[in-house]
């Protein structure tokens, strides 16, 4: 009977491969997730910046109209609509006060609504508000209403 001095290997064959596959898989998944997350964050930041830029462009246009209305003596007629600096301004009377209102759209579905009050040769801002356009109701699909 021969005695063989064979040393057993501490780790079997295939352990290195298994370990490498696991490590590579983890690294790849985390790398892809990081990249996707960063890309989405950048897209969101750019979208927010574009929205703010569009608002201030509309704001500047509204100020230009306001300055023009402050200076010019436009004959007031209830229900009259006049184009001032490329924007349609509606003049009307409410509660005995002379008022004007106009809107400047910006972005995809927003508008800057301005309402002014004229008294004693001065123009006072009553409303300077950002409003969102109501989304259109999609009724192309015949959804059951529960009754018919």
């Amino acid at each position, binding site marked *: 009977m021969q005695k*063989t*001095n*064979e*040393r057993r*290997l501490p780790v079997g*064959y*295939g352990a*290195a*491969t298994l*370990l*490498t596959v696991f*490590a*590579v898989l983890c*690294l*790849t998944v*985390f*790398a*892809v997730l*990081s*990249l996707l*997350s*960063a*890309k989405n*964050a*950048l897209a*969101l*930041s*750019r979208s*927010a*910046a574009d929205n*703010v*830029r569009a608002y*201030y*462009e509309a*704001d*500047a246009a509204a*100020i*230009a109209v*306001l*300055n023009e209305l*402050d*200076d010019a003596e436009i004959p007031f007629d209830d229900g009259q609509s006049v184009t001032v600096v490329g924007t349609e301004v509606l003049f009307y009377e409410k509660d005995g006060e002379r008022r004007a209102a106009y809107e400047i759209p910006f972005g995809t579905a927003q508008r800057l609504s301005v309402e002014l009050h004229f008294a004693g040769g001065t123009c006072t801002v009553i409303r300077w508000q950002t409003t969102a356009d109501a989304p259109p109701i999609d009724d192309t699909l015949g959804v059951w209403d529960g009754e018919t």
Partner: protein
Amino acid sequence: MKSGNTARTTPFFAEWIAAIFFFALCAAICLNVFAHARALSLEAQAIDTAVLAAENAAAAYRAADGDLREAAQRLGASIENETASLPLTDTLTLTMRRDGTLCAITVTDGGGAEVFRIDCAARKGAP
């Protein structure tokens, strides 16, 4: 007999060497991806900071009724030759400059490239 041991350990070490080589290659590629993700994240952070600072500056300009000096004082910015300047971070700088009837509020990075810009208007009659 040593030849038996050698015959068993050679493929064992070869497998480990191949595994380490393959892992190193993959790690190098993934590190590049991580670095790119980090760069995108920093760019998003810079844009967010720039937008907030520009809005703040526009509000100060409007509150000062179009007076650039007063607006700069409110923001803690230095003013020189009708241009107000305020460092935001190590790399971002905000500048306010009269541009006709508007005030150009610009945020630039360390290299002078524009990160964000808005043009703010004030009511007529302001200084």
